[in-house]
């Protein structure tokens, strides 16, 4: 079994006010394991705790209780960042720098020598398609361009684990497609990707496993294909049947005539699953949805 890259044990986060009074329980006893080479999606409505989870894993927040481990080290240990790339929700970059300066700056933060930085920056600018705009200040960038550069800075150190917060937000359909292809490419290179997104179709397209959070609680966890399987229905797709054959389809099933191309469980869309979980959770708070992974 592949190595565990990210692990949370009973991870909880409570936001308190200045006087130490509890304001929000943002995350409740989260247990997760993300293994090497998989694309893991964190889903949930606004305020469900997915960004809190990512921030806890990055060490931007400290857990109230429980543990967040990345590469087996505590998430607050800075040295884990050597092997990690992070694309924030919005591309929080310095607007007064240009693309080359930005990548060079982040490269220096990884203590990379000049030659390596130059090579890597050029490759990444090429990869995200910003060659024509690499000398323009970021304040002139469109949201999509800033997003691409955000991804480039996340990859500057050729990380083993990449955390993507809303990777496709602000991208046009082509950009979205390219981003998804890139994520799959990263997986093909053996990298681990943890992403959270509101765009369910994107998650459905790329993720191997997902966790659905609602109000800080884990509601669903499992492989995308098995989660979306509808077990009490059967779907048959056939080809080359004549009118009469189609009329006989029911008897075909009974008597095994005709050539059945597929006969399996149809899938629902992730969107439907997601909405049903949220509705269910709101109706019965505190209860974990069906366990099926």
């Amino acid at each position, binding site marked *: 079994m592949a190595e565990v890259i990210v692990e949370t044990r009973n991870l909880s986060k409570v936001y308190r006010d200045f006087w130490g009074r509890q304001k929000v329980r943002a995350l409740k006893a989260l247990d997760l394991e993300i293994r090497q080479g998989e694309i893991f999606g964190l889903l949930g409505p606004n305020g469900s705790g997915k960004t809190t989870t990512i921030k806890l894993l990055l*060490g*931007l927040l400290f857990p109230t209780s429980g543990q967040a481990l990345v590469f087996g080290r505590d998430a607050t240990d800075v040295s884990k960042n050597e092997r990690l790339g*992070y694309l*924030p929700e*919005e591309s929080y970059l*310095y607007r007064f720098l240009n693309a080359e300066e930005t990548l060079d*700056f*982040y490269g*220096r*933060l990884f203590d990379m020598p000049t030659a390596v930085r130059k090579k890597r920056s050029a490759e990444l600018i090429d990869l995200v398609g910003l060659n024509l705009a690499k000398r323009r200040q970021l304040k002139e960038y469109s949201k999509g361009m800033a997003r691409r550069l955000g991804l480039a800075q996340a990859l500057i150190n050729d990380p083993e684990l990449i955390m993507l917060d809303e990777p496709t937000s602000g991208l046009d359909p082509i950009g979205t497609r390219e981003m998804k292809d890139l994520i799959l490419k990263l997986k093909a290179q053996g990298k681990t990707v943890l992403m959270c997104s509101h765009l369910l179709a994107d998650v459905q397209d790329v993720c191997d496993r997902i966790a659905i959070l609602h109000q800080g609680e884990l509601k669903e966890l499992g492989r995308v294909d098995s989660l979306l399987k509808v077990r009490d229905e059967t779907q048959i797709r056939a080809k080359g049947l004549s009118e009469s054959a189609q009329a006989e389809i029911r008897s075909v099933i009974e008597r095994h005539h005709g050539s059945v191309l597929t006969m399996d469980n149809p899938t629902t869309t992730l969107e439907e699953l997601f909405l049903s979980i949220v509705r269910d959770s709101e109706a019965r708070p505190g209860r974990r949805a069906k366990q099926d992974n």
Partner: protein
Amino acid sequence: MVLDSDPVAFSNWIVPALLSFLTSAATLCAVALVGGYLISAFRYGPVGGGDVIYRMVLGGVRDLIALSPRRILALAWLAVQESLRRRVLVGFGIFLLILLFAGWFLDTQSNDPATLYLSFVLTATTYLVLLIALFLSAFSLPADIKNHTIYTIVTKPVRSGEIVLGRIVGFAVIGTVLLAVMGLFSYVFVIRVLNHTHEVDVASLRPVPNDPNGDRAGRTSLAQNHRHTLKIGPDGTGSTDMVQGHFHEVTAQESGDKTTYVVGPPQGLLTARVPAYGDLRFKDRAGKASDRGISVGKEWKYHSYVEGATLAKAIWTFSDITPERFPDGLPVEMTIRVFRSYKGDIEKGIRGSLVLKNPRTGRASDEKFFIAKDFYIDFLKIPRNLTDPTGKPLDLFDDLVSDGQVEVWMQCLDASQYLGVAKGDLYLRSRDASFTLNFIKSYLGIWVQMLLVTSLGVMFSTFLSGPVAMMATLASLVLGFKAQFVLGVAKGAIEGGGPVESFIRIVKQQNVTTQLEPGLTTTVVKWADSVFMSFMTAITGLLPNFNQFSNVSYVAHGFDIPPDAVLVQVFSAAGYVIAALAIGYLFLRTREVAR
């Protein structure tokens, strides 16, 4: 320039200073550890708390080892870019405007224009640069946290210490460049403003009556609100008198039967005299040895006084007096304070006399007289060839110096009047150092202050929001400049009580010397004040005393900034920067930047 404390020798200062630094550092570490443990123990229990502290200390050591110059420089570069984007150059524009319009506000009739212009440019530069440093340093990190740009920094292998240090370095670079450019402009400004010449008023030239040399005397034209009288010898060279702290050389040039006079540039305006100080002791009015003179009850305790027409004397012993060092005799300069027990003729100074004595044989020269006025430098040249009180000739080095030492005995001659002296008030002007170098040294003092403000600003910004960090830094700056006064209030040396008592006096319009009515209110007020005052003592003890880093008065009054003073400034500033760095690191490391 009047010193208000003995000049500090770096070699005497460094060891106690280092010890006090280490003690403070150890105390702060202990307080941080115990405080941190108590908070962690409260949150995670006694064992969990201990574990947190252990990991914190271990992480701190690891972070220190992992410090990377490349990362620090990258962050410094970012701070420089950010400063440029925040239009730091506007500050320089303001400086140029101040210089351009300075002439409108400065007193052109001043008796000492060099002091005036020098203190003006140095003070203007100090305040402007400190203000820029304050704004840059206090707002930078909070802005990064607010804009979330810090997320992309702290998710890289960047240590909190590198973020703090990188910012300090970056803003210091900006400050250094600004200071260098401002310094250059100030230098040119001062030189150009002070430079002037005169014409010789030929009609005024008359032979000096009864002068065996055949000198002629006259006066110059009016320039920069003053004129000089001048004397020219038969060889066609001469010089003017000292006015506004300078003189000019004058030469006559013959062309055919016409004589033209050329007045040279001002001399002696911009100097950096290097004083050689002696050790001071006293004799009281009965002639008995004493460590100090009489206290006249003034607040200024550094000076003590010699009573007139008594046996009281102030005695300086100078060492290392050799003919090689002083080939033309001893150039004595004095800034003697005056205290009158009756008014007398206020226009006239108080008379005093100096006698040189051999410390071993006791042989003495005859008296040299001077007139002392407050805040005025008196010059007295003691020639090599002197006479003793009986009129016998004496050689300064052969008869009065023994083992390189000579004593100068000062006496006040007017009965019931007093002369105030301290170690630094009478010195030998051993040589003149380069003014340009002195000017640069004064900018080093401003640079050190800029570095301190930057470090404090960045330190406060690690745990406070931008405006609050700025206010905290500003408060430290004001407290640092007014440390003497605040300490005076805190120690009860200044009349009127502590903050609460003073407030009550203001409200009741009560003067500072009357006692508060005894009773419960007064007891409570005094108690509250004692709490405030111990807090004030602690705060002033912790914050840097900014006046200590200012060299303006040295340069403005034409004194060389002692290299020891510069060393003391640089080393004490380094202590504060290290402390600010450590505190900033601790706060940033324990802070959740995503909140």
